[in-house]
């Protein structure tokens, strides 16, 4: 059972629709005990980093951290990926999980923000999440802040600068783009996650 964590930050039905389409068994939940009992975790989210505040004081943050450190396959999408980092310039008061060692930043003033649309992925070989995804495959992004390229980056995109499109460390995966809205490429990535 895959738990899709509901903390009030958007696009849950899109994520659920995509997993339903793949015939995966999913549950949308805001309960820490359901997260703890699930075999895999998806942390979605769009919007402001401050909405991650909803994970605090509810037991969800602890349940998510425990699941990740126990080696349960964990996928953070968009804001959910940013949470896997140390934090974000967007809201300095909220701490991320710190699994990836960097802070999320704004795009340079030379480009329009938010970054909205289909951008190509520079895919690094060996990623389990991106298995079978072609070099320069297109995925859909919509975000104003980005994670910098770190050692665990498995795919990067360019928008004013090079930033992390996907990261991977053990069973913890993060994607800045929206696989649930990235057509067949995105569905393949979610299928890979189901099969990890």
């Amino acid at each position, binding site marked *: 059972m895959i738990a899709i964590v509901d903390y009030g930050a958007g696009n849950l*039905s899109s994520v659920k*629709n995509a997993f339903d389409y793949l015939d995966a068994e999913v549950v949308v939940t805001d309960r820490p005990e359901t997260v703890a009992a699930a075999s895999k975790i998806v942390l979605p989210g*769009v919007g402001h980093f401050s909405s991650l505040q909803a994970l605090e004081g509810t037991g969800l943050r602890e349940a998510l951290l425990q699941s990740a450190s126990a080696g349960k396959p964990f996928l953070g999408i968009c804001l959910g990926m940013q949470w896997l980092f140390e934090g974000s310039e967007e809201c300095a008061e909220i701490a991320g999980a710190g699994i990836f060692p960097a802070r999320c930043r704004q795009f340079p003033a030379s480009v329009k923000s938010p970054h*909205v*649309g*289909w951008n190509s992925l520079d895919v690094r070989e060996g990623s389990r999440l991106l298995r079978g995804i072609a070099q320069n495959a*297109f995925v859909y992004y919509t975000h104003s802040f980005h994670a910098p390229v770190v050692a665990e980056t498995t795919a990067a995109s360019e928008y004013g600068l090079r930033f992390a499109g996907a990261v991977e460390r053990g069973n913890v995966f993060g994607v800045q783009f929206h696989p649930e*809205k990235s057509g067949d490429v995105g569905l393949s990535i979610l299928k890979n996650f189901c099969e990890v």
Partner: protein
Amino acid sequence: MLTKRIIACLDMDGGRVVKGVRFKNLRDAGDPAECATAHARNGADEIVLLDITATSGNRRTLLDAVRATARSLFVPFTVGGGIRQLEDAAAVFDAGADKIAINSAAVRDPALIGKIAGRFGSQAVVVAIDARKAAGGFEVFVAGGRESTGRDAIRWAREAASCGAGEILLTSMDRDGTQSGFDCELVCAVAEAVSIPVIASGGAGSARDFVEVFREGRADAALAASIFHFGIENIAQLKRELHDASIPVRWPC
């Protein structure tokens, strides 16, 4: 590299997709969910569903269509028409939309933009502007193009962006449905005035029109309806032509 988006728009009336010329003479063009997935398969980067009768029609019909469409559509999905308050937007998101488009209600109450953006994020709020050439500029129209507002389109676009809009969907009423080309002057004026993406709409007739609106109009995305419904222009073919003209597009996709 970020690509230019080709967006297929479905105008819906009473649960069916329709298309008219200059907002009039509506013709039936099919079932929303079927049309949407067919366009996505064909290479559409995004789908917009506009309920053009929503101001007086049945909301349940719209929500049912949104739900049915979202179930098997895996590209971004925007829904507009008759969204007057936060609760209307919430219901549409709950049914599976990724973004909502607001038009008349935002003109009446610009604070609504911030209210919806505050709860669902700016990326989920598209402000649709219907504009027509007027003395000294472009004027904003509401209520499906029936009511003039006396407002300047460029100034309104800037205000909408500062209120928290994530994108502007800009329709030239003069060009809508005519297939005589986008209004590049209007699109460029708005694209230069705001720092959020601008979707050009109204007038698409050929691949050359798209090339022009991306180059001269500086549009981030272009939307069309009629040419895609009746097979006049195939999206895959359009993208191949844009690619050949060195416009970055998601192709092959």
